[in-house]
């Protein structure tokens, strides 16, 4: 699974520019589903058709896109001024490397003369340097989007990579699709777009699919770092089952069923109560007449920086839990 995660996290795909990562995922899932479609917004949807009359229609979502930068102005010296999107942490920017769609690398700089050097960098103090010597020489165009660039690294049983939010969810969906030998349900694996700019892809996909139950697979924060977020979730504690985040209350029936399936399989889980941020499930829950929805989250440190960290055991347990959830009856 590590090789898969490497291919996914080292791919390019800021929100709205998901073509490359979508092609990578399409290649990974070739031949695994009954059919594959791309909807009008660009969501990649792989469907395993219903095998039993008692089966339900399940929507799973993991988002393809990553947080990033978009060029808003190029100055006379050839530096690109940018807007940040998707909740990029400005503290993680200075000195970071970014990559554009054509593979071109840039480094993020910050103006040296600032009013208060102790303050968090403001977006208008940051710029991207791609090695241009003047405006005419700069290969960037307005609207070009970039994501962070870092190769994946292994640190003991943990992985460090950019865009684990949410390529780790994408990896879990792909592995689940591979390991799902039989299911009574119709399962739509949705690799969604534009999650980081307001869970926009999944809402449209949920409207189109009209599923009975929805699950997002995404990352959550972990409270096990020095003076970390005030939450119980820790790396290595197993899949985090969502109770509440900033935008949704997970359907308690979905949450309880996930917890029950984990207990049956002897998998440890944790409960996620997240103060900031949300997932595709928030949009799925209120599509059309509503969809019972929940989420499985991978405990993750340093979210929205170039060096996000997860524990492999948690990731594998998410695959095991999701596979079991799909193989068993789903009655809410």
């Amino acid at each position, binding site marked *: 699974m590590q090789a898969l995660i490497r291919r996914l996290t080292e791919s390019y795909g800021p929100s709205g520019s998901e073509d490359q990562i979508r092609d990578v995922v399409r290649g990974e899932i070739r031949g695994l589903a009954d059919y594959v479609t791309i909807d009008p917004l660009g969501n990649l949807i792989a469907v395993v058709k219903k095998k039993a009359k008692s089966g339900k229609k399940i929507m799973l979502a993991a988002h393809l896109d990553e947080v990033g930068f978009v060029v808003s102005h190029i100055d006379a010296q050839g530096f690109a001024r940018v807007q940040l999107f998707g909740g990029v942490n400005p503290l993680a920017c200075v000195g970071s490397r970014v990559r554009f769609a054509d593979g071109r690398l840039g480094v993020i700089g910050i103006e040296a003369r600032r009013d208060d050097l102790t303050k968090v960098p403001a977006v208008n103090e940051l710029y991207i340097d791609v090695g241009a010597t003047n405006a005419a020489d700069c290969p960037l165009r307005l609207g070009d989007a970039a994501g962070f660039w870092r190769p994946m690294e292994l640190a003991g049983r943990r992985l460090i990579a950019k865009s684990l939010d949410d390529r780790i969810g994408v990896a879990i969906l792909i592995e689940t699709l591979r390991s799902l030998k039989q299911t009574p349900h119709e399962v739509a694996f949705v690799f969604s777009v534009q999650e980081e700019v307001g869970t926009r892809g999944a809402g449209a996909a949920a409207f189109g699919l009209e599923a009975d139950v929805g699950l997002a697979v995404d990352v959550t924060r972990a*409270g096990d770092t020095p003076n970390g977020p*005030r*939450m*119980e979730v820790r790396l290595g504690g197993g899949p985090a089952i969502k*109770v*509440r985040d900033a*935008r*949704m*209350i*997970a*359907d*308690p029936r979905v*949450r309880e069923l996930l917890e029950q399936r984990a207990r049956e399989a002897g998998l440890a889980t*944790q*409960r*996620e*109560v997240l*103060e900031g941020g949300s997932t595709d499930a928030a949009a799925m*829950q*209120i*599509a*059309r*007449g*509503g*969809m*019972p929805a929940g989420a499985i989250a991978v405990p993750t440190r340093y979210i929205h920086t170039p060096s996000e960290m997860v524990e492999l055991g948690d990731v594998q347990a998410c695959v095991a839990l999701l596979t079991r959830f799909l193989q068993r009856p789903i009655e809410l």
Partner: protein
Amino acid sequence: MPFDILAHLKALCAAPGLPGHEAPARDLLRAAWSPLTHWLETDRLGSLCATRQGGGPRPRPRLMLAAHVDTIGMLVTRLDGDFLRMSRLGDVDERTLPGQLVTVHGRHDLPGVIGQPPAYLLPKNGREQVTPLSELVVDTGLPAERLRALVQAGDLVSLAQPARELQNGLLAARGLDNRASVTALTLALSELQSRAHAWDVVAVATVQEEFGLRGAGPAAFALAPDLAIVIDVTFGRDANTRDLAYRTFPLGGGPVLGLGPNIHTGLHSAVKAAAERAEIPYNLEVMWEHSGTDAFGIQVAREGIPTMVISIPVRNMHTPVEIVALADVIRTGRLLAEFAAGLDPGFMGQLALD
């Protein structure tokens, strides 16, 4: 009155029903609404929809009367030794939390109280500030290991202040937002039993209003009503708020009729006319942008639904001692019944944005 309103309201206020977890209150309502309506269903997110079939010709237009049944509360974020730490489910007024009685819904319900550091132990400037919710504790009396066996992160915490009847027909209770409005719906359904109405009338107890107005939009999508009236609470006037006359309303002054972009002007006029027909006193409230109610989600469901907001004044909103005048609840119920009964089959053809 055909049933004991005070007992119904108090029973509703006592029932837990935090956002997303409304089952206890919904079950109570299902029992109360079942004899008053022709059919009931719970929608996909848990909103209870109870329909009184009208007498008009088919296809009959449909009026949605929506009041949210969820109440604000808290949930456990983590265990801290012998104590619990909390976060909010809805906008609880954290200034009022220290010293409150709560119920922790763990493996089984546990009584608890909310504590904060004694003022004597705080630096002088610390005494003058409100202790943030993240620094309050729930104390159940249990030691850490037994607490951990019974309670985990994500378990719910309800305010547990018992209701108290005040003088002059006033009731103080937790959860009057919005169980007072739900009670008005029960009253309206009850009154419509003895009145002819051409339209189908669907009473909806919506879920998750206090957490981002999430239940009402999907409920409206599924029901596809022709008109919707949302009943919620507004700010009651007291000694501290009487100067804010445009935002606060007297208890006992009758229902408050909303005006603003979230409200269809023609529907507003029709409701006002119904109040005048029935000689029900009312006040007007300008909601200049977002009404802050379920009407915000309902208005833009499907191709758009004309919406109206009727509010019941409540003092001490989002605290465990909200106060309502029973007379306002009764008048709101009567107004809804009067409006519903007065709708003729061709009403939609006459409805204009005047």
